[in-house]
């Protein structure tokens, strides 16, 4: 496992970082967004388990809100760097796989 804890494309921490890459979101908005772009429905337990790990590692942080029940989170600079590294790894693997299947146009 990488230091950022990102392992596979449908890994909840990775999906959360991708969702937060375009702006802060609270739990329900995160779950909806992830379902829209990845087709993965994260249950409340899985979602908040991943949020806990990411916050502990400093990859995301709560973003100012007075409402404790709808607290938004945002990605931190280390979180952006970890996401970029994980996506670059996935792109390398994807390119290799597509090329070996003869599906890569490049």
């Amino acid at each position, binding site marked *: 496992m990488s230091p950022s804890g990102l392992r596979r494309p449908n890994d909840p921490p990775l999906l959360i970082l991708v969702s937060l890459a375009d702006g802060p979101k609270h*739990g*329900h908005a995160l779950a909806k967004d992830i379902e829209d772009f990845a087709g993965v429905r994260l*249950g*409340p*337990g*899985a*979602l908040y*388990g991943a949020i806990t790990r990411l916050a502990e590692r400093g990859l995301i942080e709560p973003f100012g809100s007075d409402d404790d*029940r*709808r607290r938004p989170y945002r990605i931190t600079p280390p979180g952006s760097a970890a996401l970029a590294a994980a996506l670059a790894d996935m792109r390398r693997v994807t390119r290799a796989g597509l090329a070996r299947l003869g599906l890569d146009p490049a």
Partner: protein
Amino acid sequence: MKPASLLRWYPRAWRERYGSELAALIQDDLDEGRPAWRLRLSVIGGGLRERFRQARHAAAASLTSPAWHNRWGTIVLAGLICGFLAGDLTSPLSAGRRSGAGPGGRREQPWRPEAGWPVWSSSRALIRLLS
């Protein structure tokens, strides 16, 4: 199903930090008509994972705490002393000294200070280790 009742699966510290957010998310999912049994399974699984993780962290922290350092020090010291005493009692030199006879059955020479060198050097090494 009341979201607050499901939160009891989580450790108290976790609930104090994330409990209200998780309860709101569960309520939102219920309002959208998500199956209650699936929500329940997800929350119970998450709570058990969190409890297991905290227990694991607590166990790891206690093994590396100063109190455990003292205990490890005591255990190592006791082991060294036992090893030192056992080595001294079973060495041919001390056995011969106790019986007064040498390995070949002949009478050994009376003990001389220089014959105690291994014991003396071991004592010094032990004292140096402990200081």
